[in-house]
């Protein structure tokens, strides 16, 4: 299996962590890079192993204190980035398009396996299973033909364009600007769960990268005095590490209070790092500490080879989508009432080539599907305009753009995040309302 995971390089992208006590030093290896992005749960546990509980309870710094908000009052946006260019044609399957079956060959998902199928689209069974009830109740919808302004087949370039949210050279990510515009001033207003900060959260606004609340504690003699000392060592606002150090110290203090209560999720999450990261999002959300935007990455979508038969539940692509669906389903179920103030969207830098390649996979493409679940979603339907898979409708062999991805995200920021103008988050973009979301 040679699929490349282009998930973020920083902390969370690494294989599972702490095995210091395994003497061979060759344990717990990821068996298959295809599933790479789903292994982060062990990373979270690794973070926990660093902690010393009694010290964590001692860590209290007064200036970092937070006021707990009324339960789940903040509207929260959860951005799930599918790294590597996820094959949206396998998510929201255009089984009714006359060219679909021919282009896809064995990758095509048979109509009989699709969920909530109409004459054109059907949901991949791996999504329809765990998330079908949300589709049914109108809280889960999809948008097809979503893309950046111009095709770009470089992961790096397309991802940068996507995460910055602007084609012009701009020094911050869209989620960072969103957080700055509607911020809750909590150390947890903008959090990347499971790894480092993705491009969308980078910028001047405060943002936190976190693996797990458990174990997120400072070790050392007299941790409170240590935190104060570190604050003094980095107290010059011009220092490049001033902001991250200050944010870390603030978050450590808040986390210490939240982590004092062990988290009991309402459901059992599946195994895997992505599900583990979502569990932490749910925990922070339910703690009511002002979470405005959460970013979680899932890798393993760069499927150049051997995706497997579309209808085969043991095929690699099928299983990967099913793992995604199961984790998202558990997350929504666990949120329960808090889902009424939580909106989840999936993003990916590009879709994949309409035609299957000769390695049983698909190469880099363009137009893609987005999923939207939760609060304010106009669900139970596929939004957008279907460009079609006819030869003349394709762009470089790829699904064309029907919807600018910024229109989806801008509507989300405006209607769920209370941002006044799309220009605040997506400067230079001519916003067109799609009707994917309703106002909070």
């Amino acid at each position, binding site marked *: 299996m040679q699929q490349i995971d282009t998930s973020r390089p920083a902390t969370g992208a690494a294989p599972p962590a702490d095995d210091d006590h395994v003497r061979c030093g060759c344990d717990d290896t990821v068996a298959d890079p295809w599933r790479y992005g789903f292994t982060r749960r062990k990373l979270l546990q690794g973070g926990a192993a660093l902690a010393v509980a009694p010290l964590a309870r001692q860590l209290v710094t007064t200036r970092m204190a937070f006021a707990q908000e009324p339960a789940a009052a903040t509207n929260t946006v959860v951005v799930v980035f599918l790294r590597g260019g996820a094959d949206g044609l396998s998510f929201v399957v255009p089984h009714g398009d006359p060219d679909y079956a021919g282009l896809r060959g064995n990758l095509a998902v048979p109509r009989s396996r699709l969920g909530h199928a109409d004459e054109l689209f059907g949901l991949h069974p791996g999504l329809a299973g765990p998330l079908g009830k949300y589709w049914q109740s109108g809280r889960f919808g999809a948008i097809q033909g979503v893309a950046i302004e111009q095709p770009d087949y470089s992961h790096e370039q397309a991802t940068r364009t996507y995460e910055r949210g602007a084609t012009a050279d701009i020094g911050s*990510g869209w989620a960072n600007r969103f957080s700055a515009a509607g911020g809750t001033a909590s150390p947890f207003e903008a959090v990347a769960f499971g790894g480092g900060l993705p491009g969308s959260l980078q910028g001047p606004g405060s943002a936190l990268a976190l693996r797990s609340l458990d174990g997120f504690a400072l070790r050392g003699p007299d941790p409170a*005095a240590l935190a104060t000392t570190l604050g003094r060592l980095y107290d010059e606002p011009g220092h490049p590490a001033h902001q991250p150090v200050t944010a870390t110290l603030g978050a450590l203090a808040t986390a210490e209070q939240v982590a004092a209560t062990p988290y009991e999720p309402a459901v059992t999450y599946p195994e895997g790092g992505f599900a583990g990261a979502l569990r932490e999002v749910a925990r922070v959300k339910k703690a009511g500490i002002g979470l405005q935007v959460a970013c979680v990455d899932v890798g393993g979508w760069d499927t150049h080879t051997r995706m497997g038969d579309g209808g085969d539940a043991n095929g690699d692509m099928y299983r990967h989508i099913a793992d995604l669906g199961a984790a998202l389903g558990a997350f929504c179920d666990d949120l329960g009432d808090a889902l009424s103030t939580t909106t989840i969207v999936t993003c990916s830098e590009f879709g994949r080539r309409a035609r299957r390649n000769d390695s049983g996979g698909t190469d880099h493409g363009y137009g893609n599907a987005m999923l939207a679940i939760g609060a304010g979603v106009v669900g139970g339907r596929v939004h957008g305009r279907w460009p079609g898979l006819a030869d003349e409708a394709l762009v470089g062999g790829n699904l064309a753009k029907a919807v600018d991805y910024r229109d989806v995200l801008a509507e989300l920021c405006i209607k769920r995040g209370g941002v006044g103008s799309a220009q605040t988050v997506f400067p230079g973009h001519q916003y067109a309302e799609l009707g994917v979301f309703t106002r909070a």
Partner: protein
Amino acid sequence: MELDQQPPGLQGHPGVSRRGLLRMLGAAPLWGSGALAVMAPPVQDPPAPDPPVPGEPAEPAAGPVPTVRAADPVVHLLSRATFGATAALVADVRERGAATWLAEQLDPGLDDGGIEAVLAETHPQLARRAGELVTPGEPTGDQAARAALGQAAVLRQLYSRRQLFERMVEFWTDHLNVPALPTGNHLAARKLEEDREVVRAHALGRFADLLAAQATSPAMLGYLSQEESRGDGDQVPNENYARELMEIHTLGVEAGYTEDDVKNAARLLTGLTTDNAPAAQTYRYRPEWHAVGPVTVLDFTSANDSPDGETEALRFVDHLAHHPSTAQRLARRLVQRFVAEDPPATLVDRLAQVYLDGDTQIAPVLQALFESEEFAGSVGQKVTRPNEDLLGAIRALGFAPQPRTERPGALTNALRRLGMEPFQHPSPYGYPIAGTAWVDSGNLYTRWNLHQALAAGDYDDVLEPAADVLGRLLDPAPATVGDLVDAAALHLVHQPLAPAHREALIAYTARGADDPVGDDAARAGLLRRVVPTLLRSPYSLQR
């Protein structure tokens, strides 16, 4: 001295008083040798920001960033060209001169100080071919290869005398990334062989040789799907390797090639594949898979009329290695790696020319880089990456190795927590070279806790016991707590602290600056607070 004569790194840093600044300058020795003796002016006209990759900051700060690092040329050079300056190395280079040391480091004949002999005994897998490591149907051989590779890298980085060589091995590992994963096509076993035969063999040689060797390595051919790419019949070649070869390894997208260029390159490269029988895992050229027919890729053309397209494929690879866009890209990455997060365009342009004039030789580029005014003026302009942080702490404290430890994976596991386990970056972009990509909250607190773990003895069975290390540190003890903080700073961060930082550290000891240190136990207690805190300080986070 007037303030406008401050070295660039200190300009605008309000945390350093004028007196503190003068003390720092007073502590800075003169550069040992003529060639490198320039104290450069601040870098002028900061260039347009480098396009960041995902995971790197959206926009580097324009111009020099404030720093607490003192402009000490010896410490500066060692902080960049090694995996961490040590007090002993600083003293040695002060005595012998930086130019002498650099020439020695660029000499391929420099001995490694004995680490390879130790590794040959503790990690015999390192000498094996990929096919010898593979266990058919089992991941165990790959897992052992992955473990051996990572552990060897860490020990070499910590203890080899060939520090700049190991820095370049790390650089090429990031630039030409192949993760050592236990995949169905045995990337870990293949990577182990490739690390030895490709990256380490050419790390200070010619880039053209390095690139050609990798283009025929089963590791890269397997990682980027090239081994499956066929151009015979109506097969459509796999574009994966061709695209990343041009985008990441050589030209960069700024070179302006088109999608047709990528498809043409993919066609030209068909035939480069592997023998993937379990015991083989070797490079193989298959003319029957090669797509014949003329190709044009930017300014490269080939009639490509023979099924034996290997020569033309390698001519294309060689062409890419010598391309001016490749020279720019490599120079920019080297400057961003070794000089400043925000690479000065003047230096990038000069180094690109040195690269082209030298027929892609790497050593002359490094020589020019470290002798440049831009380098001398870049004190404190790099943020320490997580592996530099942990390994630098171990080196600064002088932990002796325990290569026969029963926990050989402990340090690679620590690096994994930091997101930087060697050879484990999953995407072809490699770990970000910008240090600023690594200072998010999760990463900072993990670093901080690892500093504590080192000092608290969590690695006593992996390295030397921490009590022994701290026991000989500053022995005999300085008279007062303030003296002890000053001496520890000189030993670990090689310069005095700004007064406010000194006060903060003394406050954390809960003792007075003029208090006598006391007995050995009291000294050890102070060091348990002072040492990890210095390792977490801005003096360590910037280099």
